[in-house]
């Protein structure tokens, strides 16, 4: 008989870390015989709980997410909980994630800060001010358009300037870059005057909008910032509407290891495919949790893994995962059957009848469960 230490050493690589730590702790005070019995029992239970080769895990995932999904509230309202902005949630957000849409309907960033900055509201607010995009419009007290002389007068608000920590010289420097050959800009005190040499009403309006949207400070794309307090971790963090991960991660105060946005493609680009995978799973989990649906996280990882298997983010559907299938019949069985078949025949594709869908169409055994085993019989 071997000692419990020897057995523990043997199973260390078999069991997952948390389980191993638990059993190691549990057998600490047991004698060898009882310890061995316990370890063998746990080991057997663990090995029995593993997924067998040939198990149709994709179908299990589809059903496990699909059934609770039917219970979901189709459209949801603006919640009172998250002040100042509403967020896509529920089914719309779920569809957005599995379709891997370019930009989410509510792009958000969750910005976590490094220690001294996340401890007080004031410190976090100072960072938030640096992040929020400040346009000239936000600084203006009054905007006046004189259609006769072709002049736009913008009076800056001194209060706003002080609040944003800007001085008039900086603003002048940035605004004067907008000067063009038919556009002259002059400054007097807190007043900016933009004059057009050839005034016409439509152009004047266009110029007005353009001038007001000039970014004076902050990070481009960040429209709103809201401070939030996490009582569990005792820290302040920033939630923003509008995303620009790349720029935010450059900031010194920002904890780049935790900050993320809900824009899948942005995360894939800036943080990589592994991060995108984690985000897909996390977003689906969040949507289902919010609706009070309890689905095991492993199903989300299954979806996320299929979407990110190829090294880039692919939607579930005929433009992504299904469309990338080798078998023309499997593709045709999904959507737009005729078009898919015609294109496949034009290209001269071959059908190998290896997958599940093709095998069903052909009336063969499917490569699932016991059907995955191939035997050669000796006559």
């Amino acid at each position, binding site marked *: 008989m071997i000692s419990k230490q020897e057995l523990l050493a043997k199973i260390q690589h078999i069991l*997952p*870390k*948390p389980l191993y730590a638990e059993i190691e702790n549990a057998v600490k005070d047991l004698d060898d015989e009882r310890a061995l019995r316990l370890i063998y029992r746990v080991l057997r239970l663990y090995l029995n709980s593993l997924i067998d080769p040939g198990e149709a895990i994709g179908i299990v995932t589809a059903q496990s997410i699909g059934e609770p999904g039917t219970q979901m509230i189709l459209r949801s309202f603006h919640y009172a909980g998250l002040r100042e902005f509403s967020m896509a949630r529920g089914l719309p957000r779920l569809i957005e994630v599995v379709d891997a849409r370019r930009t989410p309907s509510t792009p958000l960033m969750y910005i976590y800060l490094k220690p001294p900055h996340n401890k007080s509201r004031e410190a976090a607010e100072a960072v938030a001010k640096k992040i929020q995009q400040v346009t000239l419009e936000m600084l203006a007290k009054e905007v006046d358009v004189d259609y006769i002389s072709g002049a736009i007068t913008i009076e800056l608000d001194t209060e706003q300037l002080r609040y944003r920590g800007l001085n008039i010289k900086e603003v002048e420097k940035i605004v004067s870059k907008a000067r063009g050959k038919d556009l002259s800009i002059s400054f007097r005190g807190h007043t900016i005057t933009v004059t057009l040499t050839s005034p016409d009403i439509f152009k004047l309006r266009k110029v007005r909008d353009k001038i007001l949207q000039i970014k004076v400070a902050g990070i481009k794309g960040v429209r709103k910032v809201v401070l939030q307090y996490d009582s569990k971790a005792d820290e302040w963090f920033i939630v923003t509407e509008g995303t620009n991960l790349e720029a935010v*991660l450059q900031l010194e105060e920002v904890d*780049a*290891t*935790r*900050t*993320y946005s809900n824009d899948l493609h942005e*995360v894939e680009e*800036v*943080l*990589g*495919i*592994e*991060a995108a*995978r*984690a*985000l897909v799973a996390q977003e689906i989990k969040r949507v289902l949790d919010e609706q009070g649906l309890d689905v095991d*996280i*492993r199903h989300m990882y299954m979806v996320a*893994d299929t979407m*990110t*298997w*190829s*090294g*880039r983010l692919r939607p579930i559907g005929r433009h992504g995962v299904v469309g990338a299938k080798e078998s023309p019949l499997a593709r045709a069985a999904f959507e737009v059957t005729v078009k898919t078949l015609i294109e496949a025949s034009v290209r001269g594709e071959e059908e190998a009848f290896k997958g599940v869908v093709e095998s069903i169409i052909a009336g063969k055994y499917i490569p699932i469960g016991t059907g995955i085993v191939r035997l050669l019989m000796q006559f």
Partner: protein
Amino acid sequence: MSRVSLGVREVSVIPKEEAKELLKRLRIRPWQLPWIRSSDPLAKLVDAKPGDVLKIVRESPTAGEFVVYRLVVPG
């Protein structure tokens, strides 16, 4: 290691020998591993070239820590 986040704990390029052994153990061809593009921030971090195999240690809520391998592909 400044930008490794959202679930990734460690990344490294594994030596050719080790990669061969891994493929033998799993009884698969290299392209049957999940892929990662060589332009991916994670691949750039360890300076991986197409053909390399990356060892990635993920955080996992169920298994504590989980090791995955990804084949580096051009792109």
